[in-house]
């Protein structure tokens, strides 16, 4: 298979075609630039569907692999190795799916420097795809760091009043974690003699004590990205300041890079450490769930509320992953997708009202359902999905997570799941509060009386997400089928490690 006909390369690098084309436009040709970006991202989505058709859901191993020697220094080989398996296929699809939606949401929201914006956005897509597909640690690290740059500028240029502060904070926070990861990568390269993730997984044999340190080093980078409590402090700043499309991608995909990192690297490469640290990871997750929920409730800015709710929701994902059993991990993977859909949709919805009213203070609203019935109904569905109403997608992820954590041998106690389940109550509290402040009550502010309901373009951005919310909620089977063999394979690694430990 030659380099460019590999579907994984294509799905990763195709957005660059858009970048090249857009470079030839003038800054003023906004319409052409927007359409180019949108069409390129739609084609990328098409390619990701093609990848899906090539994907054999019965095969637990990496598929569509491309492996080329890249850099050779002394005895180490850094290879350009890409591959997809059940752990990453859904995230690839999610990235390709959310990018065009985000781009479409900027149609009227981004008027300044459209050219730069679209270039950064497409570059970001390249980075995200690379992160989910790279199977060489060094290559992964390159993509990982690469995503920082476009996001930094997206926040720093098109953000809110405090954008520079937020952008710098975002950048430094993530960098700080990455450094430790880089060191761990180098250690692996030197002492294990390979950067290839599949090779390293098979090789194993890292002493338990060393695993612990490596786990923590990788974990630092990922925990900041997730973000796990108490490393979440950059998130509200970044979300509040980021433009809508930036928030959608940040919450929808970038945070998943953290949870995915744990799943792809920490658990299979350092399984003994993962088993040992599972209760601690669970503890941090549960604190994050409850803390994020309580803090969300006290926010006055809708966007901040949604930002903190991510801390809570990703706590669920992490709890599921570190249940280290099939229900927990599969639920966790599905919940990554669910969070991308629901929270992505919430940010889109917040962006829509912000565009109309130029405020996000909940006290400035009330009774919007009367003037925006379609917007209200769609927000209700998304809100319910976010609070895990059975029959919608959130529940299909949350339930297996909590069930898995409840019976997890690695976590070792049902108390964690018990407390996490309290988060289900608290989620209803802050989300219903948000819905009530925005949509219910009397329509008593004059500024709100004339706002228009959704336009066709806005509907096109939201409706696909709502369809997925129902689809995953009612019939998640195709999604679980995609990941099941890969998760079962991961479980054999974990079981071997538990046996070695105890």
């Amino acid at each position: 298979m030659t380099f460019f006909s590999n579907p994984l390369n294509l799905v990763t690098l195709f957005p660059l075609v858009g970048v090249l084309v857009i470079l030839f436009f003038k800054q003023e040709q906004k319409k052409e630039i927007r359409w180019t970006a949108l069409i390129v991202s739609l084609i990328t989505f098409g390619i990701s569907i093609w990848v899906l058709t090539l994907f054999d859901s019965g095969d637990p191993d990496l598929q569509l692999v491309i492996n080329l020697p890249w850099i050779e220094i002394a005895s180490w080989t850094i290879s350009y190795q890409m591959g997809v398996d059940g752990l990453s296929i859904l995230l690839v699809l999610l990235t390709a799916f959310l990018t065009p939606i985000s781009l479409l949401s900027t149609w009227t929201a981004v008027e300044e420097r459209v050219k730069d914006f679209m270039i950064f956005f497409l570059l970001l897509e390249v980075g995200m795809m690379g992160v989910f597909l790279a199977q060489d640690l060094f290559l992964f690290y390159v993509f990982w760091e690469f995503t920082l740059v476009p996001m930094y500028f997206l926040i720093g240029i098109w953000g809110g009043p405090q954008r520079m502060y937020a952008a710098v904070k975002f950048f430094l926070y993530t960098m700080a974690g990455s450094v430790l990861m880089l060191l761990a990568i180098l250690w692996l390269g030197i002492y294990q003699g390979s950067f290839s993730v599949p090779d390293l997984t098979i090789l194993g044999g890292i002493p338990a004590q060393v695993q612990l340190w490596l786990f923590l080093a990788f974990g630092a980078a990922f925990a900041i990205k997730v973000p796990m409590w108490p490393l979440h402090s950059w998130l509200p700043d970044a979300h509040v300041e980021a433009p809508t499309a930036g928030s959608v991608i940040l919450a929808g995909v970038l945070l998943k890079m953290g949870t995915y990192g744990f799943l792809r690297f920490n658990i299979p490469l350092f399984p003994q450490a993962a088993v040992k640290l599972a209760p601690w990871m669970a503890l941090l997750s549960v604190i994050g769930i409850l803390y994020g929920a309580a803090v969300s409730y006290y926010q006055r800015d809708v966007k901040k509320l949604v930002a903190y709710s991510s801390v809570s929701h990703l706590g669920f994902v992490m709890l599921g992953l570190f249940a280290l059993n099939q229900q927990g991990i599969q639920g966790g993977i599905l919940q990554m997708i669910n969070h991308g859909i629901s929270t992505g949709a919430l940010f889109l919805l917040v962006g829509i009202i912000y565009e109309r009213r130029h405020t996000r203070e909940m006290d400035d609203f009330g009774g919007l359902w009367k003037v925006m019935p379609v917007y209200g109904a769609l927000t209700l569905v998304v809100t319910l999905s976010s609070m895990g109403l059975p029959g919608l997608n959130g529940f299909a992820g949350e339930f297996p997570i909590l069930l898995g954590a409840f019976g997890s041998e690695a976590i070792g106690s049902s108390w964690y799941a018990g407390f996490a389940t309290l988060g289900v109550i608290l989620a209803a509290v802050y989300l219903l509060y948000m819905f009530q402040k925005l949509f219910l009550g009397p329509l008593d502010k004059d500024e709100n009386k004339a706002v228009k309901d959704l336009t066709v373009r806005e509907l096109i951005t939201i409706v696909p997400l709502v369809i997925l919310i129902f689809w995953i909620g009612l019939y998640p089977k195709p999604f679980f089928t995609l990941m099941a063999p890969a998760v079962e394979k991961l479980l054999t690694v974990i079981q071997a490690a538990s046996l070695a430990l105890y």
Partner: protein
Amino acid sequence: MLLSEAITQGPEFFSLAPWIIFFPVIGLLINMSFGGRMKERTIGILASSASGLAFVTSALLAISLLAHPEGAILPLAEWISIGDLQLNWSIRVDTLSTTMMLVVSGVGTLIHIYAIGYMHEDVRFKGDPGRYQRFFVFFNLFIATMMILVSADNYLMLFVGWEGVGLCSYLLIGVWYDRDLLGRPGTENALAGSKAFIANRIGDFGFLMAGFTMFWTFRTVTFSGVFAQVSQIAEIQPGAILAITLFMLLGVAGKSAQLPLFVWLPDAMAGPTPVSALIHAATMVTAGVYLVARSAPLFSAVPEAQAWVAWVGGITALFAATIAVGQHDLKKVLAYSTISQLGFMIAAVGMGAYVAGMFHLVTHAFFKALLFLSGGSVILGIERGHHHLDHENHHDEEVFDPGDMRLMGGLRKKMPVTFLVFTVGAVALAGIPPLAGFFSKDEILAEAFHLNFPVYILLAIAAFFTAFYMGRQVWLVFFGDPRHPAADHAEESPPVITTPLIVLAGLATLGGILNLPWVHTFTHWLEHTFETFHLHLHPGKFNLLIAIISTALAVLAIFLAWLLYGRKPLLKNQADPLKKILGPIFTGMNRKWYVDEAYDHLFINRYIDLARFLSIKVDWDFWHDWFHDRVIVAAYRQGARILAGPIDLGIIDGIANGLAKFFQAVANRFRKLQTGYVRNYALAVFAGVVVLLGYLILQ
């Protein structure tokens, strides 16, 4: 059983079962998509037909069960399957589920028809006809989710319906989401909806925990899978079953408004009367009773859990009955009465008297729906009168509460049909023979007498209060002279409203036939389901003594009510005569024993304080502003200074300068950086990496 023998080879319609869900879903989809362009009446008729077709389907299922009492299970699709967690969309048709289907769709259809008339007027009094469509969409959604609840074949599908009906309750309480209880602009209705949802979520927490424990104990959550293993597990892990049942009890307390979670139901009366009748009286709130009856094998395996359930039911029955005595609002009396009657049912199923509990569930659905709907007819009648006044007298701007019984009186002449049917409902609820309530309540009392005597005492006293507050209500509303001009001008409701009332009055009168003592039709009907799980129902013995005691108590209570409210009818602006007698106790009853205030003080305000503390002090001041923006930044700067100074090696310097230039260029290009620190940070980080890299390579 003669009927079933006659048609043993009778027809079998089990495959139609999914339509009990599909019909209302189709109805709501059509109304949602095209309702905006349809006539009001068309919307109502369509929704009612959807519910009516669900009833026809349920009836066909019931007929099939006569010939094939073993029922059927219809798997529809896989839902969530991960490892040994296998959850399916699968419908269970047996005599228990079909009983619920019949009640839900039967009473539901009558209330749909009633609502055609009721909402027509309600949206006009409140001045927003657009709400009509919304109401019927949600109303059909409720039927659909309730059908999912009662037809589920496993606990998780049941939970879908369980939370689904909660959502519909939330939406329907808040149909007038922009008003307060009196129809003025406000948030009261919206808040009542949220309160219902959250109280139910606390119960759902229990349900979920029960589900987790169940799965890890039984490795399945299907009814048959769990029940088949109960006796075996009860030997080795009785604690697990106890945990499951007690967690489930928390869920039941939420959904069926029992102590300590009952507080949402009175507030839920903010919804239009058809909602109160269908959801908050006849069907949804009885889901907890159904759940316990459905889980009979589990509860029967742990007597300790049964005792808990029975006590919760018994105490709630009495507690709520005392509050009902002190209410001035017509619907609030009925709301507390509902909580109290649900307590009777919960106590019954808790004691293992599953048939008695289910029987009371059915008759209660008849007479309580009847009471709510005729109460709604009263309120409409008064609103008509008030409207009439408004037209005569435009400057009449006083705040008027059409549900306040202190402003009613004398309505038996103005609204004779409503008066008649309401009285039938009241007498049925009071437990006077031979109306439906007598038979079902008496069966519970007779069972309690044998099974749990202390709870019997609680229930008997509650029954006394029941008869008293119903007597009080009838006299306050319908007798004496009107205490407000609106009541004086009240008008009787049109046939679309009164017809369903008459049908329900018939059911409330004759409902006892379902399970007459010595015949036990209903017991035999339900036996088929319980025997599948090796539970043998003993037909409740009719105990003449207990019947006489309860009837005597009821008559005495009604007599007392007559003494206080009937002999000398309440006059305009006169205080409630009970208040003179009971003083602060009456105030306590009226203020529902300050439970809401206590919860506010103990839990809700504490949570708000905690959220404030966490978000402002901990998250923002400490983590965000101090730890991250001060400590970490200071550390960075320090690091940068050290690296830029002593360890200023040639290579690093070169790279660092290059990087610094790069970042400077980038920064200048895009926006002058606020602080310029980014250069230093990046420099520090990169320099550090290079140092360590070098160390590792050279090592």
